């Protein structure tokens, strides 16, 4: 699968999210919840079929005796598409399809002024396996006006790769993995690479006024191991070398973020905002802003609009396809990854949710039912026509969700 590194980061993030949710104080009226959600991500290409991903999610959670929160879930990625043509040495894009499965369980213990939660997740696909453990704790201070939280996760990931011992350290002769056939089966010519990821995220929230909550925090992530796309070839130099993508084995990533939520009671609405600065040891720098406005309409409808902006510089060893071809590599590393290129994107979208809450006096087997739908449009701004994935200018994100709370 061509997206495995992002997968590992995603799994770590997902596990932190689930663990954080488990550590959050449970609402007295909700003792159990079941939710299903399906997201379709469609990224058309001007040169081939692009990429389409279906991402179903199923989650259940329950609170026992008001203090013990348990949760379990399953999600999958069904990916079909074609590799971007620009950076692959092959002139025609190659079609691929893969399915990833991810399961997770978590348990949390809550007190009146704090809580702790632990989570475990396992993800598998034809060429990537991920085992993640995470722990999250939070503690309320000064009459619940401050919340100090800390989340940590560790990934033990395994990546399928071509056996490049024959290259004997000559990185220009690294060969790419042709397909995922034979991965994790001791097949000659195929090896398993390790990748360990540690993620730490402290944050402090402050309830400033009856209308305003702010939060500041940091994210620190250290990756140690194989981080390249084993399938990707990059054309480097005028002599026509097409080695496998080659990235450093070690990466340190840091982010500082600030978030707020502000209520507009006269409008029955709220605004959520996030601002993030990011830097890493590969010299990628980024700034990201996200704003969401949400409003009740009547008793049963909730509508929201979202805008997201991201701008980043490229990694120190990044060049676009023409740069690598004409100038050669910038040092001993090369990449065809859009995430490591100087680029930006905009995201705009909206969401609508319908709620059904039976009256208290009536006998009902559920507390709340929620049915929602979302559409978002993601617009990419690559720096040049030779940048990775420059043939993919935009993407559509469509989502449907259904939840029952008991």
């Amino acid at each position, binding site marked *: 699968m061509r997206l495995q590194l992002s997968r590992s980061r995603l799994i770590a993030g997902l596990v932190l999210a*689930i663990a954080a949710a488990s550590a959050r104080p449970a609402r007295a009226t909700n003792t159990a919840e079941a939710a299903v959600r399906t997201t379709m991500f469609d990224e058309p290409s001007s040169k081939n079929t692009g990429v389409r991903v279906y991402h179903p999610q199923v989650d259940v959670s329950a609170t026992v005796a008001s203090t013990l929160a348990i949760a379990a879930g399953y999600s999958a990625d069904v990916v079909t598409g074609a590799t971007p043509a620009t950076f692959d040495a092959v002139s025609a894009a190659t079609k691929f399809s893969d399915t990833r499965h991810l399961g997770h369980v978590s348990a949390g213990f809550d007190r009146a002024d704090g809580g702790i939660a632990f989570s475990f997740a396992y993800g598998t696909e034809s060429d990537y396996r991920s085992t993640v453990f995470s722990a999250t704790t939070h503690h309320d201070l*000064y009459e619940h006006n401050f919340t100090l939280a800390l989340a940590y996760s560790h990934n033990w990931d395994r990546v399928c790769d071509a056996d490049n011992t024959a290259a004997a350290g000559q990185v220009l002769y690294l060969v790419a993995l042709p397909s995922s056939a034979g991965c994790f089966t001791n097949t000659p010519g195929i090896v398993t690479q390790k990748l360990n990821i540690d*993620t730490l995220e402290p944050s402090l929230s402050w*309830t400033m006024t009856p209308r305003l909550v702010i939060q500041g925090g940091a994210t620190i992530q250290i990756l140690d191991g194989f981080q390249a796309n084993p399938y990707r070839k990059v054309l480097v130099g005028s002599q026509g070398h097409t080695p496998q993508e080659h990235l450093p084995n070690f990466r340190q990533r840091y982010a500082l973020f600030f978030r707020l939520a502000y209520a507009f009671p006269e409008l029955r609405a709220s605004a*959520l905002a996030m601002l993030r600065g990011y830097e890493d040891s590969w010299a990628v720098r980024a700034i990201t802003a996200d704003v969401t406005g949400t409003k009740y309409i009547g008793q049963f409808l909730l509508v929201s609009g979202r805008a997201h902006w991201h701008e980043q510089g490229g990694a120190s060893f990044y060049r676009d396809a023409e740069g690598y071809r004409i100038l050669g590599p910038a040092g001993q590393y090369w990449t065809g990854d859009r995430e490591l290129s100087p680029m930006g994107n905009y995201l705009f979208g909206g969401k609508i949710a319908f709620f059904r809450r039976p009256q208290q006096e009536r006998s009902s087997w559920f507390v709340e039912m929620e049915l929602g739908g979302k559409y978002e449009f993601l617009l990419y701004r690559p720096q040049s026509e030779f940048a990775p994935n420059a043939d993919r200018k935009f993407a559509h994100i469509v989502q449907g969700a259904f939840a029952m709370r008991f």
Partner: protein
Amino acid sequence: MHSQCFSKLLILAALLVGGCSISKWTVKPHQRELLADRIMQLDSDPQERAAEEHVLANREGAIGGTGTSGGGCGCN
């Protein structure tokens, strides 16, 4: 000079650790009606958040900023 700085730090620390002084700026439980609403939660739906991160983690070179668990809930 040093003693002046130390005195200021001491006063600041006393203000910070003194619950009485902080209470001037704290939000009382009866003032948390708006904050307890779902639309005021920084991380109201972990499943939706995971799906959002799933999309953007694959398409941006940065991480973080999603927080862990935030304050503002009046549940307690």
